[in-house]
């Protein structure tokens, strides 16, 4: 029984699973503050519109000497607690899975853990500091999610002040608070892809989540998922709304200009994410990790070599199937 079974049994299967990952390590400066603010905001907006959802929070290698993020969420935001499904991933998985000793966080393996265990009919993979826009919430409340369709949203960076306690849509939508952003374009609708990838659960599982074969970088793995989805015949569409990200020290867009040396540690080096795709093994998302319930809503994934993918599984790295627009994929 997974930690969310009690919730789903009580409330029925949620329409949506929102999968985020993070840990209480102060990543990017005041990670917890940014996470809790966006979480509260998104929860209130979704609840207002009657969207039933579960929050799948995956803590990848949580520090042993600090409170767990899931506990902080329950204490700080009791109204969010009922929808929380937390997964704590044993830190040994990082060392066992990583192919890049400089990489400090395996974001997409962590997200796969959440996607694999998500119970919603649709799964939104996003980041812990993303505000859902008005158009996105409207779409989630009113639009039926079509199968084999990846929904994307344009990410808008906002330059908010230190006090973000009173964030509301008018403030986020005010172009004076926004930095230049590139609207997403077909065929892939890439650009800030990790901030919003929405897909029906079965399709997410059919694609077997994000790339677990090339484990040298975080950078481009979200884009690589779009290439795989497109090459596998999935539709990619713009959901018609925006998501907002607050600029902060430690974010990729700022770090790449200010502290390029640290970028590799957080994101890894550039790789041909548009040119190769993957076929994850069937045990993707640490399927075989022994799960131990530590409270009603949180499970600990114990370490087991059985759950760890091979260091090198080269047959599973393949060329994408050509489709109309493939030239645009490789060039855009």
């Amino acid at each position, binding site marked *: 029984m997974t930690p969310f079974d009690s919730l789903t049994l009580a409330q029925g299967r949620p329409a949506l699973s929102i999968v985020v990952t993070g840990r209480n390590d102060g990543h990017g400066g005041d990670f917890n503050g940014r996470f809790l603010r966006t979480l509260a905001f998104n929860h209130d907006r979704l609840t207002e519109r009657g969207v039933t959802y579960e929050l799948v929070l995956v803590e990848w290698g949580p520090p042993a000497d600090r409170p767990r993020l899931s506990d902080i969420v329950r204490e700080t935001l009791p109204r969010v607690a009922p929808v929380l499904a937390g997964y704590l991933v044993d830190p040994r998985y990082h060392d066992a899975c*990583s*192919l*890049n*000793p400089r990489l400090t966080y395996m974001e997409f393996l962590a997200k796969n853990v959440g996607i694999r265990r998500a119970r919603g009919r649709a799964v939104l993979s996003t980041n812990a500091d993303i505000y859902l826009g008005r158009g996105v919430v409207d779409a989630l409340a009113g639009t039926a999610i079509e199968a084999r369709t990846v929904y994307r949203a344009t990410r808008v960076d906002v330059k908010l002040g230190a006090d973000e306690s009173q964030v509301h849509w008018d403030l986020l939508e005010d172009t004076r608070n926004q930095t230049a952003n590139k609207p997403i374009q077909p065929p892939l609708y890439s650009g800030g892809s990790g901030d919003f990838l929405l897909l029906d659960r079965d399709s997410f599982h059919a694609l077997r989540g994000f790339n677990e*074969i*090339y*484990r*040298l970088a975080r950078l481009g793995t979200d884009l690589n998922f779009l290439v795989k989805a497109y090459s596998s015949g999935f539709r990619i569409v713009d959901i018609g709304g925006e998501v907002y990200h607050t600029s902060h020290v430690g974010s990729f867009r700022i770090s790449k200009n200010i502290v390029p040396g640290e970028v590799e540690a957080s994101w890894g080096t550039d*790789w*041909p994410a548009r*040119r*190769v795709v993957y076929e994850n093994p069937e045990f993707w998302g640490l399927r075989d990790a022994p799960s131990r319930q530590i409270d009603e809503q949180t499970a600990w994934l114990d370490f087991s070599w059985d759950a760890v993918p091979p*260091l*090198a599984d*080269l047959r599973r*790295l*393949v*060329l994408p199937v050509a489709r109309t627009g493939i030239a645009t994929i490789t060039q855009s």
Partner: protein
Amino acid sequence: MGLLHSLLGAVGLASAGQVRTAQQRATDLKRAVGESREEAARWKAKANELSAKLSDAEHAAERLPKVERQLQQWKQRDEMHAAKLAEVRERMRRAERAAALSQEHLIATETKLDIVEAALGVLDRRTRRPL
């Protein structure tokens, strides 16, 4: 007047008016003769021109079968060249596709090599750690 004319005529003379009329007629006839000569010259030139053209046409008619044969040869050569060009184009298209595919395979292979190198690094670190 008639009697005077008769008397002058009897002695072989003509009146001044008759002389003027005769002179006028002579002048008119001379002009008509001149014009006729010019007209004749023009027609002659035209006739010459036409006969030259006729001669050219006869020559051309004689050369026509040869020209037709040459034209046919050119046409065949042109068709051959067009076919060759199409074949070369098709070969180029295939070569481009093969080059693009090779490039894709090369990128995939390089990416796999990155994985192999990284995996070796991991194994190396794991091996050294217990020592």
